[in-house]
C-alpha cells in the first residue's frame, strides 16, 4: 500500500469481569490505556486496549492477554503495568513470572492455550469469553455474531428452526436437561397469543458462575439465541431475568440490548425481516428458589417468587397465563452456533443422549480451578485429574459433588463415569447447572450432607409440607449425628424421609433436596456408622467426635505442634515425644496441619 509499511497492532485484553474488577483490573486497564494514548505517533506498534468479560479464572486474576503474540498473564497487579507496557506491549518480550502456572505440569506456559487446563476443553458457549469487549457489538459481529440470526430469518422457516434444534439434540443447561427443541415445539403448537421467551440468569447455586460469565462476557450470544427462539415459536416479547447481585451482568446485558436495538436486531421489523421482538432485563428476587421456572415467572409478574403446582406446562400457560419458553443462559448461548455450524457438527460432539458441551465451575481441592467447557461424555477422571491437574495439597481424592446444593456426591469408584445428564442422575446426582466441587480425604461426608441440607432448609420457600418440614427434620437428624447424638435407627429414618420429600414435594427444590443425603449414605455409609455407633468422625471434621493423638512411633519431637497450638494444649521436650492434653485441646486441627511427619492422628471422641 503506497509502499508504506503497515504498523503492527497489539491487542491487549484486560479482564474486567466481576472477579478481576475486585482485584483492581479496571485500574490496570485505565493505566495501560493512558500509556497507549501517550505514545508518540510514529511508534512502530499500535496498542489496542480492550476490557473483556470474565475468563473463568477469577482465582488467578486479574488476567491480561496480549495478541497476536498470545501471551497470557495472571495475577497482574497495578505495579506490573509499566513493565508489561515497556516490555511486552512495545517489544513483545515475555515476562516469565506473570505467565500462567500450569499446575498439572508445574511449568509456566506462554500461551494459556498450551496449558493442560485449556487443551482438553471445547468451547461453544464460552466461545467469545475473554476474547471480545462485551460492550462492543462490533467485536461480537467480527467473530460471526448475528450471522445465525440472518440465516434463521431469511433462509429458514420457524418450523425449520425448531426441527433443527430438535435434531441437534440440545438439552437444557439449567438443570433438568429437558430437550430444548421439544419445548419450543410445544410452545409453537399452542394457539394462544402473545407468547414469551425468557432467559433464566438467576444462577443461585453458591459458587457457580458460568451464567454470570456468559452474561458479562458475551451478552449478545444470549440475545441472538433468544431472538432466534422467539422467531421459531412466534413470541413477541422476551425477558432476561438476572440474579440481583450480578450488577455487571445487568449492565452489560442492558448495554447489549440497547446496541442490538440501534443496529436493528431488536425492535420492530428486525433487519427488514418483518419479525419483531422486544427484550427487557428483569432483576432477580434474590432467593435461590427464584431460579425455579414457576417461581421465576411469578417474580417477573411482580408476585412473590414462590413455585406453584404446574400440571399444565409453561409452554401452554406460562407468564401471565400465556405460552412461554424459558431456557437457561447457556442453553440460549448454544443456539446461534447450532444454526450457523449445523446439526451434523453439533450432534457429533458429546454422547448419544447428551449432545454438545457443558460448562462447569470446577472448584474445591483441585490444582486448577475455574470455569471449564468440555464435551459431554468426558469422564470425571479426565476432568478432575486432566484438566483440574489432580488433588491440590497432600490429600487424596474422596468425592466429587456435582449439580449444586441438591446434587450428589460421587465416590472414587465412579471416577470413570462419563459426564452427561443421564449417567449423573443414574449415580444419584445430577448435572444441575454445572457445579463441580472436588473433595479430598479430609472431608467428612456426613458433614457435607449436613451442610447442603442446612442451605436447602434455609432456601426452601416453605410453601409445601414435605420440603419445609422434611428437610428441617432431616437436618435435625444430621446435626445430631455430627454432634455424636445419632441413634441406630437414624439412617433408616433419613431414607424414609428422603422418599417422601423427593416424591411429594411441590417443586424441583424439594424433589432433589435429599440427593446429598442419599448419595452419601449410598457411597459412604460406613462414615455414618462410625459417627453413630463408634462416636468417631473418620475424617476428623466433626469436632464433638474427634480428638487428636500423637503417634509415638512417628513423632520426631520437633515441637512444632506445641509451638503452634493456639490453646497451649501440647507439652513435651525437644527430641522427646510430645503429648496433647485432651482437657485443654479445642480440636482446632492446627497440630495435624503443621506436623511434617504425619504423627498427629485422628481418633474418636475424647473420653474425659
Amino acid at each position: 500500500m503506497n509502499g508504506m509499511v503497515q504498523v503492527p497492532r497489539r491487542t491487549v485484553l484486560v479482564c474486567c469481569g466481576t472477579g478481576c474488577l475486585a482485584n483492581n483490573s479496571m485500574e490496570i486497564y485505565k493505566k495501560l490505556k493512558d500509556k497507549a494514548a501517550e505514545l508518540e505517533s510514529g511508534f512502530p506498534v499500535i496498542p489496542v486496549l480492550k476490557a473483556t468479560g470474565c475468563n473463568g479464572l477469577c482465582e488467578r486474576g486479574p488476567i491480561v492477554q496480549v495478541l497476536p503474540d498470545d501471551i497470557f498473564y495472571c495475577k497482574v497487579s497495578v505495579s506490573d503495568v509499566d513493565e508489561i507496557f515497556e516490555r511486552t506491549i512495545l517489544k513483545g518480550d515475555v515476562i516469565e513470572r506473570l505467565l500462567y502456572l500450569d499446575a498439572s505440569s508445574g511449568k509456566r506456559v506462554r500461551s494459556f492455550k498450551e496449558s493442560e487446563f485449556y487443551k482438553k476443553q471445547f468451547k461453544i458457549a464460552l466461545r467469545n469469553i475473554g476474547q471480545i469487549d462485551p460492550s462492543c457489538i462490533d467485536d461480537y459481529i467480527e467473530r460471526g455474531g448475528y450471522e445465525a440470526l440472518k440465516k434463521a430469518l431469511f433462509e429458514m422457516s420457524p418450523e425449520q428452526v425448531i426441527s433443527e434444534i430438535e435434531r441437534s439434540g440440545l438439552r437444557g443447561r439449567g438443570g433438568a436437561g429437558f430437550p430444548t427443541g421439544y419445548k419450543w415445539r410445544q410452545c409453537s403448537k399452542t394457539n394462544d397469543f402473545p407468547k414469551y421467551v425468557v432467559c433464566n440468569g438467576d444462577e443461585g447455586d453458591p459458587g457457580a458462575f458460568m451464567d454470570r460469565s456468559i452474561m458479562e462476557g458475551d451478552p449478545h450470544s444470549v440475545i441472538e439465541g433468544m431472538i432466534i427462539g422467539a422467531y421459531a415459536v412466534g413470541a413477541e416479547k422476551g425477558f432476561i431475568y438476572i440474579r440481583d447481585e450480578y450488577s455487571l451482568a445487568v449492565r452489560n446485558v442492558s448495554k447489549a440490548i440497547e446496541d442490538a436495538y440501534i443496529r436493528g436486531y431488536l425492535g420492530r421489523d428486525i433487519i427488514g425481516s418483518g419479525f419483531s421482538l422486544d427484550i427487557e432485563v428483569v432483576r432477580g428476587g434474590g432467593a435461590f428458589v427464584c431460579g425455579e421456572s414457576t417461581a421465576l415467572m411469578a417474580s417477573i409478574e411482580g408476585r412473590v417468587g414462590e413455585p406453584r403446582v404446574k400440571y399444565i406446562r409453561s409452554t401452554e400457560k406460562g407468564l401471565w397465563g400465556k405460552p412461554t419458553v424459558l431456557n437457561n443462559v447457556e442453553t440460549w448461548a448454544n443456539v446461534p452456533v447450532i444454526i450457523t455450524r449445523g446439526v451434523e457438527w453439533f450432534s457429533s460432539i458429546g454422547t448419544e443422549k447428551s449432545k454438545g458441551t457443558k460448562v462447569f465451575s470446577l472448584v474445591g481441592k483441585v490444582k486448577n480451578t475455574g470455569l471449564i467447557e468440555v464435551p459431554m461424555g468426558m469422564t470425571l477422571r479426565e476432568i478432575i485429574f486432566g484438566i483440574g491437574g489432580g488433588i491440590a495439597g497432600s490429600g487424596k481424592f474422596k468425592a466429587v459433588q456435582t449439580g449444586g446444593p441438591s446434587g450428589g456426591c460421587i465416590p472414587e469408584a465412579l471416577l470413570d463415569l462419563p459426564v452427561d445428564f443421564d449417567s449423573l442422575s443414574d449415580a444419584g446426582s445430577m448435572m444441575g447447572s454445572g457445579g463441580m466441587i472436588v473433595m479430598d480425604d479430609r472431608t467428612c461426608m456426613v458433614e457435607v450432607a449436613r451442610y447442603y441440607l442446612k442451605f436447602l432448609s434455609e432456601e426452601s420457600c416453605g410453601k409445601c409440607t414435605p420440603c419445609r418440614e422434611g428437610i428441617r427434620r432431616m437436618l435435625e437428624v444430621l446435626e445430631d449425628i455430627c454432634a455424636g447424638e445419632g441413634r441406630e435407627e437414624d439412617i433408616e429414618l433419613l431414607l424414609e424421609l428422603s422418599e417422601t420429600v423427593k416424591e411429594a414435594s411441590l417443586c424441583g427444590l424439594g424433589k432433589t433436596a435429599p440427593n446429598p443425603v442419599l448419595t452419601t449414605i449410598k457411597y459412604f455409609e460406613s462414615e455414618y456408622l462410625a459417627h453413630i455407633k463408634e462416636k468417631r468422625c473418620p475424617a476428623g471434621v466433626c469436632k464433638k467426635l474427634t480428638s487428636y493423638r500423637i503417634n509415638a512411633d512417628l513423632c520426631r519431637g520437633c515441637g512444632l505442634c506445641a509451638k503452634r497450638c493456639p490453646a497451649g494444649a501440647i507439652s513435651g521436650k525437644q527430641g522427646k515425644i510430645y503429648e496433647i492434653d485432651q482437657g485443654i485441646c479445642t480440636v482446632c486441627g492446627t497440630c495435624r496441619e503443621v506436623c511434617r511427619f504425619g504423627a498427629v492422628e485422628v481418633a474418636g471422641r475424647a473420653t474425659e
Partner: protein
Amino acid sequence: MKVIIDDKEFEAEYGEYILDVARRNGIHIPTLCHSDAVPGQGSCRLCIVEVYERGKNKVVVSCLYPITGEIKVYTNSEKIHRMRRNIIRLLAARAPGSEYIKKLKEEYGIPEETRFKVDEKEKCVLCGLCVKACEKLGSMAISTVNRGATKKVAPPFEEPPVDCIGCTSCAHVCPTGAIEVREYEGKRVIWNRTFELLKCTSCGRYFITREQYEYMKNRHGIDMKELLCDRCRQKSTAEKLVSLYKKLLVKKTLFQCYRLQKD
C-alpha cells in the same frame, strides 16, 4: 370421559380434578389446604395419589391434578399410605397443638413423637389459606414472612395489622384452628388488634366490627339502618316474603272481583 380410581371406573369431565371426582363417588382422600372458597394452594400435600398415565407412574396432588386423558389413580397404595403417614408425622411434629392434626394422627396411628424437637403450643401448618382468603377479600392484612423452616404467617412488622377489618375470615378458613379470636364486652381481638363491635339494629346483639361495616358500606352500599345480624337478616327476608305474598294475594283477589263484576 372415564377414569379408574382404586380399580373402579367413574365418569369425569375433561379437566376435572381427581379429588372432585373421588369425593363425588364417596372415595375419601384426606385434605388440609383445600378449600372450595380459596382454591389452588397445593401446599399441604396430604391429598397425594399415585397416577398411571401413558405407561408412566407419578405422585401428584389430587386437589389440583386435572384429568385430561385416560388415567388410573390409586388413592391409598402402599407407597401413598407410607408417604401420607410421613407427611402427617411431619405436620404433627410441627403443629402438635392443633386438635384437627391430633385427630389425623390418631386416625393414621402415628405414635407420639420422640425423635424431633416439637413446640407443643404451635397449631399453624402454614397451609396458606388464611393469607389467600384475606387477599381475596381485598384486605391483604396478613402474609407469610421468611422462607424455609422459619416461615410464618404474620401481619406486617408483626404489629396489629392496620389493614385488618376484623372479619375473622382467616380464622374461619383455617383448618387447624390456629388463629385466635376473642370477643368480650363489645370488643373483638384478632391478630392482637382490638376492634369495637357494632350491634344489630333489630336484636341488639354485637356482631360486626366498625371496620367491617365501613368496608361493606364502601363496597356494597349497605347503610346503618339495615345493619342486621345474620339471624335477623334471615328473619327480615322471610317477613318481606310474607308481605310480598300478601300483596300478591290482595291483587289476585281484586282481579277476581273485577272479573266477576265484568261477567
